[in-house]
């Protein structure tokens, strides 16, 4: 209604006779336009040009790709090889394929080493009485590991049946799932898809990030709430999110709040 009234007022004001009274028979010509643009309006035109180029540069800066590999490249941390592989250019795919395999192997062995380290540091902390429980826990964790590997395998098999876009996404998820080994789940606690919370309720978690977290084995708020600063960092790296974002968005605190809200 208000808009209709505004339209009426606009029409009546704009088509008032006084506005259109002094009509001129003379038509403005393009040479006249050029003349006034380059003589009378020369300075504003210059300023406008500067403004536009500033806007374009600003826009280009805003849309720069903030993905991990690009940032690393920008800071020149010597990981250019990884970047080349991850860009997945069709032209030099063949050259990079071997590199990629090597890189992956290196990654995996590094992961295993880390996992071992974790085990070693954990053992002395356990009192002897708890050894039996420890054994059971170990068996369970082995089982879990097997299940995760199975899942990974399943994802890999599914890859072939997908179109290119879904494939790229799936590949990323696999990459995330592979990194699950680096994360200390004994602190986080385990969960499965059946008892998952709606992770997207956390600010900063979108559909894809939630999927990545699930691929990593994080399904519940309580797992997120258990994150120590080190684990936060590891998860951040694992899901290939903007560096330090998990810490800055305080996912752990948010998860704690959401947990509290649910119990009430």
């Amino acid at each position, binding site marked *: 209604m208000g808009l209709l009234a505004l339209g009426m007022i606009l029409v009546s004001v704009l088509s008032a006779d006084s506005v259109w009274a002094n009509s001129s028979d003379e038509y403005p010509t393009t040479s006249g336009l050029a003349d006034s643009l380059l003589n009378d309006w020369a300075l504003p035109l210059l300023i406008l040009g500067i403004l536009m180029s500033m*806007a374009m540069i600003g826009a280009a800066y805003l849309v720069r790709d903030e993905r991990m590999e690009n940032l690393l490249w920008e800071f020149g941390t010597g990981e250019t090889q990884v970047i080349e592989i991850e860009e997945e250019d069709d032209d030099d795919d063949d050259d990079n394929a071997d590199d990629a395999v090597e890189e992956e192997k290196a990654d995996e062995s590094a992961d295993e080493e880390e996992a071992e380290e974790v085990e070693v540091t954990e053992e002395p902390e356990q009192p002897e009485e708890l050894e039996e429980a420890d054994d059971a826990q170990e068996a369970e964790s082995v089982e879990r590991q097997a299940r995760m590997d199975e899942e990974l395998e399943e994802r890999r098999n599914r890859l072939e049946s997908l179109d290119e876009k879904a494939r790229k996404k799936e590949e990323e998820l696999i990459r995330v799932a592979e990194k699950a080994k680096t994360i200390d789940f004994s602190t986080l606690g385990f969960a499965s898809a059946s008892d998952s919370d709606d992770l997207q309720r956390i600010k900063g978690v979108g559909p894809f990030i939630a999927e990545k977290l699930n691929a990593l084995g994080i399904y519940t708020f309580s797992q997120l709430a258990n994150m120590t600063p080190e684990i936060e960092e590891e998860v951040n790296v694992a899901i290939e999110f903007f560096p330090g974002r998990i810490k800055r968005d305080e996912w752990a605190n948010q998860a704690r709040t959401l947990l509290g809200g649910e119990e009430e």
Partner: protein
Amino acid sequence: MIDPALVSALSALMFVIGLGGAFTRKNAIIVLMCIELMLNAANMQFAAAAVHHGDTTGWVYTLFAIAIAASEVAIGLAIFLAVYGQHETISLDDVDVLKN
């Protein structure tokens, strides 16, 4: 020459549509388009006045408005892209806090 009243009516209509859309729509890109529609309504009025009065100043204004609108859209779209990267949505209802 076309009756100025008709031009005025058309530009008023465009302006009102743009205003309504800018206030009611939730998709940021549609809001941007509506703002553009309002700008173009004003441009049309300027151009019509220029022809009517036989003066090129109206055209110059129109050109300036178009240029500024272009840079505004460039920045706007860039911001939406950045927002989408963070929130995975550009629905204006979901992106109503400046912090993060």
